[in-house]
């Protein structure tokens, strides 16, 4: 009996030690996250001024700003939203409301979408380079960046839109059909209004991911150092992650500081977009009992 108790004590001790180990593991993540944010804040807050936001890049770190990158990022992301959301939501509507779930086309489509989600971002850059930039001949322009990022986030938008549409209870759909409403009017008048918050949340999160992407844009010829603002869809452009990359690649410490300021601007925008997504989700959650 005492032997059993001794063993039991040991088992509990090991259990508790393991628990301590796990707490330690979790704290590593917290520590890294905290250090990362603090490090970037401390390095960048001094040079994060209004002039920094409204100036052109410069060869001298003290005079350099991010205006073209900021405008470029807004432009690319706005275009990406215009392209990817209709296509993504359209695909989701097709898959949930129209398609025969057992058809080969649907199975192929689903397999394809889940595989696309795992393709490295830089490979989308290669696609953009080969197809939009070279084959179509649009060069290293704003619209090519938007097309490329659209294809990159399309799987994410499709999947989140499918989830949102599936969350609309079937009874509501059938109620609409029972009143003699056509399929399309049921979708636009009943299902989409209810699914919109979910679709918006997913889309905003996907777009905020696109905003941080540098690799695909580099592949399609976007550069960090641009001293003019884009005027048309066919203009060259910069984007926030690209100017940060440009400054990070320079050896002088002054550029590391303004790179940190650029990152701070990016992170602030990310926080705003993510909070918006969370607020939309919490405010407008469908409650149907």
């Amino acid at each position, binding site marked *: 009996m005492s032997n059993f108790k001794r063993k039991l004590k040991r088992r509990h001790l090991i*259990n508790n030690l393991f628990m301590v180990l796990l707490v330690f593991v979790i704290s590593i993540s917290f520590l890294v*996250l905290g250090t990362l944010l603090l490090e970037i804040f401390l390095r960048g807050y001094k040079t994060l001024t209004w002039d920094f936001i409204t100036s052109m890049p410069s060869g001298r770190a003290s005079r350099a700003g991010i205006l073209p990158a900021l405008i470029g990022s807004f432009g690319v992301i706005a275009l990406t939203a215009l392209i990817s959301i209709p296509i993504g939501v359209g695909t989701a509507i097709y*898959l949930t409301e129209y398609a025969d779930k057992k058809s080969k086309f649907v199975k192929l*489509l689903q397999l394809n979408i889940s595989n696309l989600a795992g393709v490295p971002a830089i490979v989308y850059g290669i696609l953009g380079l*080969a*197809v939009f930039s070279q084959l179509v001949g649009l060069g290293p322009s704003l619209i090519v960046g938007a097309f490329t990022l659209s*294809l990159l986030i399309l799987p994410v938008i499709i999947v989140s839109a499918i989830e949102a549409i599936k969350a609309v209870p079937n009874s509501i759909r059938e109620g609409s059909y029972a009143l003699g409403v056509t399929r399309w009017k049921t979708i636009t008048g009943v299902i989409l209004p209810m699914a919109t918050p979910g679709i918006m949340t997913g889309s905003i999160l996907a777009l905020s991911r696109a905003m941080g992407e*540098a690799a695909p844009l580099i592949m399609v010829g976007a550069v960090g150092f641009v001293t003019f603002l884009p005027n048309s869809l066919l203009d060259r452009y910069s984007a926030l992650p690209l100017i940060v990359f440009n400054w*990070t690649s320079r050896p002088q410490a002054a550029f590391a500081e303004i790179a940190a300021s650029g990152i701070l601007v990016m992170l602030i925008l*990310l926080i705003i977009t993510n909070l918006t997504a969370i607020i939309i989700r919490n405010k407008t959650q469908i409650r149907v009992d």
Partner: protein
Amino acid sequence: MTKKKYLFQEKLIEVVLVLFASISILTTIGIVFSLLFETMIFFSEVSIFEFFTSIRWAPVFDPPSFGVLPLITGTLLIAILSSLVSLPLGLGTAIFLSEFASSKVRKVIKPIIELLAGIPSIVYGFFALTFITPLLRSFLPNTDIFNALSASIAVGIMTLPMVASLSEDAMMSVPNSIRQGAYALGSTKLEVAIHVIVPAAFSGIASSFVLAISRAIGETMIVAIAAGQTPSMSLNPLGSIQTMTGFMVNMALGDIQQGSIEFKTVFAVGSVLFVITLIMNLFAKYVIAKNREVY
């Protein structure tokens, strides 16, 4: 008449939606063909044998050498070192969230862990170069400024949430009755986690590992910033290396002319990268599908 009009409209809408859905299939076709096209031209100029056996990668040197092995070695080094960070920490996090934490604690910790995945990779690259590298150099003075270890740590941290959340999903889907059965026999939490839950969720955990490694292989900006630009067969984690993605970004940053051999190398290396990640992703799905326990 109106009914006819409606039916026509309905049909038209369906056709438009099918077209939208086809775009994702066209994307895959586009990726495969654009990679294949330029890669075929590349191999008409460079022997495929040299590409896969030569141990020197110097495509822009004179005379050039096109051995992709150093880039693959560099990529593997990052994949292995980063998985030393992401797999144990991710699995530990998942076990804690699924088996040890109360639902209140989980609600606080989970979003914070997921924040790590939401930070853009360029930010991790900056952090690796300006913080992790100097830290490493204070412990290990013969560390290069650009080194594989620093980049790997950052890549590992970035892919940790992926391991944590996919593994946690797998563990959470193990039915509670099994868990309670083990507790009823007098097991401690640790014993339940190690002997019951982890084996039952094994396929999900394994696939999360494969997906995280695949993500590390495709990760670009961290390695482009912090790992260096030296294609090398060396497995020294403290030295400068180059990965496949790092090479591609590097070439794209210079002004490469369409049709030049540099342009084609990007596609050839991209093909290797695409095939490796595709195989890993399909394998992860296969593991899940084959070993799914049905309760």
